[in-house]
């Protein structure tokens, strides 16, 4: 009896405090995330230049332009190349790093820190360092090629449209793999040693043990890492800004980069928001697939 009485009293009390506890977060979140997000949706149907008070409604013209513009197609192509390449390379490298750290006998924590540290760097700083390492005249890579007598292979890694995107991809793999390594490492350390011993008693070699025992048991870690690296690659920005500024020409322009350039460099903010909506749709679709896949796995477990 007394329990219901205090329960009732408690309920009223809860209500009065909950509002005040939630309000600051709710206001900030609404004003600085939700209002501009919805403004974006609205602005994507206008030809706004970002300055004039004249915001003209132009219907679906921006989206029509996106559909037809070769520059946007190129950016979309680059985005897909970057996403596929980064997902594959980051995960393969991360898994190899995790296996090395897991297997190595000495200095395990030291190695883990070395592989992880680039994750902590800003894309701007990391981009700058690589820009100089890859510089045609004074860079480390070309200097090493000279020393090895491979001067003929020397290239302007960031100035040549054939190599600029590749250079950005490879330096990003260097920067991000350590993050996924930590997740794989946790997965590896969760695999019962007995399973591998049993497999080896059954005559499975190292490769077969990995292929048939270790790798299937890392499925959870793999899903998480693939999805995270996919979304991370769609948001890639800092490296491009400092290393190539989208160039040479439009060779390294991705969707995130073109949004920035169109809106703040070319004064076409209506068009920029329309591109942003396309990016959002892309990320939303991938997130939904992610939730789907993760749920499916949960059921299996």
């Amino acid at each position: 009896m007394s329990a219901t009485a205090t329960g009732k009293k408690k309920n009223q009390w809860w209500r009065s405090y909950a509002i005040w506890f939630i309000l600051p977060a709710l206001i900030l979140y609404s004003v600085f995330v939700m209002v501009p997000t919805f403004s974006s949706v609205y602005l994507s149907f206008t030809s706004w230049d970002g300055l004039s008070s004249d915001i003209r409604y132009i219907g679906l013209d921006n989206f029509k332009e996106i559909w037809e513009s070769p520059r946007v197609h190129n950016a979309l192509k680059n985005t897909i190349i970057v996403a596929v390449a980064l997902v594959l390379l980051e995960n393969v490298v991360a898994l190899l790093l995790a296996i090395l750290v897991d297997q190595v006998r000495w200095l395990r924590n030291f190695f883990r820190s070395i592989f992880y540290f680039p994750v902590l760097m800003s894309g701007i700083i990391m981009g700058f360092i690589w820009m100089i390492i890859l510089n045609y005249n004074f860079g480390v890579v070309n200097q090493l090629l000279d020393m090895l007598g491979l001067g003929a292979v020397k290239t302007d890694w960031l100035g040549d449209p054939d190599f600029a995107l590749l250079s950005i991809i490879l330096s990003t793999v260097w920067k991000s793999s350590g993050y996924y390594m930590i997740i794989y490492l946790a997965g590896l350390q969760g695999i019962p040693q007995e399973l591998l011993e049993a497999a080896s008693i059954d005559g499975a070699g190292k490769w077969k043990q990995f292929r048939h025992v270790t790798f299937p048991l890392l499925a959870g870690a793999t899903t998480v890492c693939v999805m995270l690296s996919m979304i991370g690659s769609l948001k890639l920005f800092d490296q491009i800004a400092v290393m190539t500024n989208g160039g040479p020409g439009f060779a390294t322009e991705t969707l995130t980069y073109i949004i920035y350039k169109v809106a703040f460099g070319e004064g076409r903010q209506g068009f920029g928001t329309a591109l942003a909506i396309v990016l959002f749709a892309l990320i939303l679709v991938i997130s939904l697939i992610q939730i789907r896949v993760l749920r499916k796995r949960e059921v299996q477990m």
Partner: protein
Amino acid sequence: MGGKAKTPVTAGSYLVFAVTLAVAVLFAFPIFFNIMSAFKSNAEIMRDAIAFPQGFYIESFKYLLTETEYPKAMLNSAILTLGSIAAMIVVIPMAAYAIERTNKAWTNAVYVFFLFGMMVPFQVYMIPLFKQLNLMGLFGNLLGPIFIYIAGSVGFGVLLYTSFLKGVPREIEESAAIDGCSRIGIFWRIVFPLLGPVTASMVVLQGLGIWNDFLMPMLVLPSGQTKTMIVELFYYVGEFSSRWDMIFAGTTMSLVPVLIAFLSLQKYFVKGVSSGAIKG
């Protein structure tokens, strides 16, 4: 792991160690190269990028610290990072606590509303936000980015805190309430200290993200007085395009705090990754 330690050292162990070491050299080189180059003069860098510094050249550090706005930019970055984090770990756990402990339709709706924000990347709302800050008079003011950082981390933060709060028993809170402790007192004195692990992850993850952030501060803090360190460095790459020694000195100075934080809080950085793994 215990099992591994008992296996004898074989040729294989040395091979694995050698391979790991080689890969580690490859991974550490760019950072080593950065710090090494910061102590070389520009002429030295241009002459031979790989060579060790001839002396301990610190002129670029001196120049940056006395002749440019770099110290100011460092201060701005520090204010922005510390200010945002401090506000974040007040505002977000309070909201999460109220949402988790009040199981009402409206709090559930707020929760879903917050989670939606996790899926919206900054690029989606940055263009109107830029204009909005102008209208609010926050453009070029450090307070603007602080609000934006808090708002941007509400979704992720509330998710982290509510899932942790599910495992925190209510009994202590109830007995404290009976003893006449106010709700705010219960939260700060009893609940908040129990949230330490989540708060540590938030501080580490968000702090690093803010310290390293580039796009947003570049857009909303463009003037000399309020630029952050990373934005300042970005402009140096254009301005001092032939003075690499300056830029190397600048990047080294921005890496040092990260390195110190990493070495002293390593445990939380590694844990932060696994909690960050649920962020979409």
